[in-house]
């Protein structure tokens, strides 16, 4: 069982489900869930591997969404170049924010990232020529792929583009996690002074992980801007940061597939309860409290523990 979980089979199952899904479920819902799943996986790279809780990841999501929207709409760039440039910009922003934030650890790190994200939020609000202020950037053209061969205005075509982006991002995260680099990150999480004494430049590793996480979060945000043809302040708001923390917590921190479950569940919950407004906030809070008090391993962690106990019985 253990070996099965670490092998290619779970990934094949996931892939099969995601390829079949748009023929059964409303594609726009799936695209939103996939964007947030990538966002949560990128966030989880930082929290699950390095143990750094960023409470400001929405800034990368939001800024990249604005950048991609502007590049495509105002500068007339193609969809793919816009997404890639926005990802690059997000990485640069991650370098600046990360260099400041990794100077403190633990709870301070969370507060600092939250503060810097709030600053980015206000800057977005003020930079009206670029962000449209309260209105956001609307009517972003979805564009085409492969020199006009594929029209992304069709939801199915767009879905498979989003799926490809997700798989690319997920691949990078999985590769980084299961590499010597990932092992060093976990060593830092478990015992930072020991990692330092072994000769690793702890801060450099943290910074690289932060930039990687920021870049992939940006990738998710830029893609989201094309799905909804909209980049808005909501993307950069602290509630979005909180939401992605919740997805990761619910799905299972530090688990490769956990955040994906979390993202799909939370997005599904929100779209079913969209008519109830304030109840969504209350429910999010309740899930937070329940997860922290009684369900700290999350869905994936609990499932793995259950499978493990099963295979021990045999």
């Amino acid at each position, binding site marked *: 069982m253990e070996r099965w979980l670490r092998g290619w089979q779970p990934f094949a199952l996931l892939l099969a489900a995601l390829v079949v899904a748009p023929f059964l479920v409303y594609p726009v819902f799936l695209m939103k869930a996939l964007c947030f799943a990538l966002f949560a996986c990128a966030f989880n790279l930082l929290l699950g591997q390095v143990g750094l809780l960023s409470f400001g990841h929405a800034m990368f999501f939001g800024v990249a969404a604005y950048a991609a929207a502007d590049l495509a709409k105002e500068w007339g760039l193609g969809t793919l170049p816009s997404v890639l440039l926005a990802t690059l910009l997000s990485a640069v922003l991650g370098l600046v924010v990360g260099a400041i934030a990794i100077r*403190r650890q633990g*709870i301070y790190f969370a507060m600092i990232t*939250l503060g*810097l994200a*709030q600053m980015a939020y206000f800057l977005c609000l003020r930079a009206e020529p670029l962000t449209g202020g309260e209105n956001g950037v609307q009517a972003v053209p979805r564009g085409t792929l492969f020199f006009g061969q594929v029209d992304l205005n069709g939801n199915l075509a767009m879905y498979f583009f989003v799926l490809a982006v997700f798989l690319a991002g997920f691949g990078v995260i999985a590769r980084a996690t299961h590499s010597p680099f990932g092992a060093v990150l976990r060593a830092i999480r478990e015992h930072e002074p020991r990692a330092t004494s072994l000769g690793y430049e702890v801060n450099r590793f943290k910074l690289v992980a932060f930039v990687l996480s920021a870049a992939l979060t940006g990738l998710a945000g830029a893609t989201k801007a094309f799905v909804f043809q909209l980049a808005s302040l909501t993307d950069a708001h602290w509630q979005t940061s909180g939401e992605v923390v919740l997805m990761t917590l619910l799905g299972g921190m530090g688990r490769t597939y956990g955040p994906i479950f979390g993202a799909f569940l939370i997005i599904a919950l929100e779209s079913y309860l969209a008519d109830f407004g*304030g*109840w969504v*906030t209350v429910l999010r809070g309740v899930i937070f409290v329940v997860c*922290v008090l009684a369900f*700290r391993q999350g869905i994936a962690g609990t499932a793995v523990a259950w499978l493990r106990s099963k295979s021990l019985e045999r």
Partner: protein
Amino acid sequence: MQALFSQLLVGLINGSFYALLSLGLAIIFGLLNVINFAHGALYTCGAFAAWLLLEYAGVGYWPALVLAPLLVGLLGVAIERTMLRRLYRVDPLYGLLLTFGVALILQGAFSLRFGSSGQPYQIPAALQGSVDLGFMVLPYYRAWVVVCSVAVCAAVWWQIERTRLGALLRAATENPTLVRAFGVNVPRMITLTYGLGVGLAALAGVLAAPIYSVRPLMGADQIIVVFAVVVIGGMGSIFGSIVSGFALGLVEGMTRVVYPEGSDTVVFVLMALVLIFKPAGLFGKAA
């Protein structure tokens, strides 16, 4: 000149709230090692408690100034007893996540009941009107807020730094096990400390109710600035949290005169600068 002084007054008012809130955060953090994310929501609770007391029980401002912090403090005690207590043995990040969840529940509940628009709360009769100081017009209520906040902060500081109870509290912060061995009921002390910190937030909420209207989201944005204030001041010292609260309020007011566009970001810019040049914070001990 008029504009400068009135903006400085606004800054001082904001600083009064920052100081009360960051003081509460610092006390809670000292003993519980938890960053109370629900602090902003509990500040909102204080304001709503005052409003509800007036609306449904006819209790005026002055009794509410005592009653609301007590009631919200009791809510805090309940939160600590039923939930936070279970998390002292795990990573402190879980405390942050739990209180964030509590904040969402409170904030969502208020939004459900009252919508997002504000409820007005009258300035008490004794403090209506204002005095012309020549260089600026000083509304009595605003002067009261500053005086009250300074007095409460000073009293709490004195209590913690200069009395036996405070000495026990500081000892428990350093080494809870040892203090327990001396026969002090540390778990009860922790509960009451959380209640006190939360009560301070609620007091700030009652003070704020007549100035800002009573809104479900009034604490949510405030608390992020207060977090930045805490990072700038450093968590180590009670005194530091009070001083940096007032100082940053003033800096914010000053920025509103010199460069209005920067007024809502200046605290965060300062936070980044402090982190670059003195990562432990202005009053903090090196981590």
